[in-house]
């Protein structure tokens, strides 16, 4: 979460993730009312908000990270901060910062065409999500318009660390591979190297670990610990 507790720390943590073997970094742009997020990311967003972090500061941070690394950078935020900046200014600034993609969990397929059009114009990927509740036909429609990859929401519920993976993910991923030609990245509750290992052999092309790292970054505030944790996670994908 960018700006939790401050942007300098986030920069160190993001670099630690990349050193640890992350293929891609997601920067959270906080929103006051994150309905898709569980306790860890809610709390991190509140801290970022209290610290006075602004979305434009996060774009500056992205630009700094981009200068030091080639790892793809994604922003994860809600629609309202994007609308408040203005769709086109947001797309232009994000492109100038070197942002590769954007994930907006409260942007449904139905409401996505306008923003996708603007982001396409700036060559930024708008990543769409599929959920456990998404019927096959709808998943195909989502797969057809998503950019970069399809974000597979692993479970019913919000983000947040969990001790187990939901059942049936392997068959869901198989079915999704039939309908979507893009890579599939799985997230929401993926928390441990064990989870990562299981997913890597279940058909996931990418694995998103959010809350577990956010929590670690906040509680230990130690880039080396985060780097070691990410290395352990990554070893599940590349043994």
């Amino acid at each position, binding site marked *: 979460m960018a700006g939790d507790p401050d942007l300098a720390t986030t920069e160190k943590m993001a670099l630690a993730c990349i050193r640890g073997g992350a293929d891609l970094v997601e920067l959270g742009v906080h929103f006051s*009312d994150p309905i898709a997020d569980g306790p860890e990311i809610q709390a991190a967003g509140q801290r970022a908000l209290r610290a006075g972090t*602004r979305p434009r500061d996060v774009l500056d941070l992205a630009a700094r990270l981009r200068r030091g690394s080639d790892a793809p950078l994604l922003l994860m935020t809600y629609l309202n901060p994007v609308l408040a*900046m203005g769709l086109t200014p947001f797309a232009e600034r994000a492109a100038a910062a070197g942002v590769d993609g954007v994930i907006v969990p409260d942007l449904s397929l*139905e*409401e996505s065409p306008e923003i996708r059009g603007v982001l396409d114009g700036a060559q930024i990927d708008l990543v769409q999500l599929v*959920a456990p509740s998404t019927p096959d036909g709808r998943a195909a429609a989502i797969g057809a318009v998503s950019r970069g990859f399809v974000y597979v929401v692993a479970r*019913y519920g919000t983000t947040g660390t969990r001790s187990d993976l939901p059942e049936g993910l392997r068959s869901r991923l198989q079915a999704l591979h039939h309908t979507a030609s893009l890579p599939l990245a799985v997230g929401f509750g993926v928390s441990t190297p064990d989870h990562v290992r299981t997913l890597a052999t279940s058909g996931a092309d990418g694995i998103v670990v959010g809350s577990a790292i956010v929590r670690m970054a906040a509680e230990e505030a130690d880039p080396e610990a985060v780097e070691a944790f990410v290395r352990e996670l990554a070893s599940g994908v590349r043994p």
Partner: protein
Amino acid sequence: MAEVASRGKFGPYGGQFVPETLMPALLELEAAYEDARADPRFEAELDDYNRHYGGRPTPLYFARRLTEACGGARIYLKREDLCHGGAHKFNNVMGQALLARRMGKPRMIAETGAGQHGVAAAMAGAVLGIPTEVYMGSVDVKRQALNVFRMRLLGTQVHAVDGGSQTLKDAINEALRDWVTNVTMTYYCIGSVVGPHPYPTIVRDFQSVIGREIKDQAREQMGRLPDLLVACVGGGSNSMGTFAPFLEDTAVELLGAEAGGEGIETGRHAATLVAGRPGVLHGARSYLLQDEDGQIADTFSVSAGLDYPGVGPQLAYLKDTKRASFTAVTDAQALEAFHTLATLEGILPALESAHAVFAAMQRAREMDRDQVVVATLSGRGDKDVQTVARSMGVEL
């Protein structure tokens, strides 16, 4: 592809801005609602509950002494305070709970601000045998303690929400998180004309019984339609219910009273349409109170039920098209109207409703004696007696 069209728009407002997990549930709800609307038995059953359980129709009462005190237009009160549970919230909840049962959902959740919607949901859950849980901001749990206990007596579990500003907006956040987690088995009974499509439409339709009755009663009692309708606006359900049947009657003016809190100029208020700008919150595009970066603002109002930084998308559209206008009534003005109504008419109004009463009195003074103002008295004031006592420096 028809399936992916943007739905439920009022001009640029409304829509379905929710996590994908909820989209199939919204599509299911929309289909179930259309099916229910086409079924005369659904209508008949709701009507039966409205009459024999809810106490409808509620009276349209000529407030003689209030009218004399203002010296202008005749003021009538639509007595939703006499509805079962003490507020208009019953109208919506009964309809949605019947829909939940029809959809075979074994569990119902709701959010609440003042606690009136929570109490109504608890009643409907009890009478239809649907286990119900209610989310409520912890600030509201304190200031509406009476309603929290009423819910418990009705067999409903109340979850205090500690996140954010600990008021209605945060209760909705938490209800949405519950729904995302338990969506297949759970009906989310939202309490106002807010949220993603189809909720603003469903809630408006169920609340429109208010305006339909006003229309019939006005014709019967005065042989004409009112000149002005006034209702308070939190999320906007009692106002939309009042206004909707009159949208085509353009000679009838529509006025919404928002919570001016300590005054618009102080920034401590909840007057979303008066002072906000468009954005997306809780599944819909509408006016919002927010900062420059799109972070939702904290709101302030003496009335928990108006303490919300968003507003129903159709009201946003009525504002832009100028079919309705909106004014801010401060805490002090609402309290003044509360005392006026108590002493002149023997009615203790909800503090939310007192905002409408103040706006109605203010306008009536400037109107002719042969004109008619109808103010919707959305609820009764028992729940607010503690708050009013405190404002007078009285410890109960």
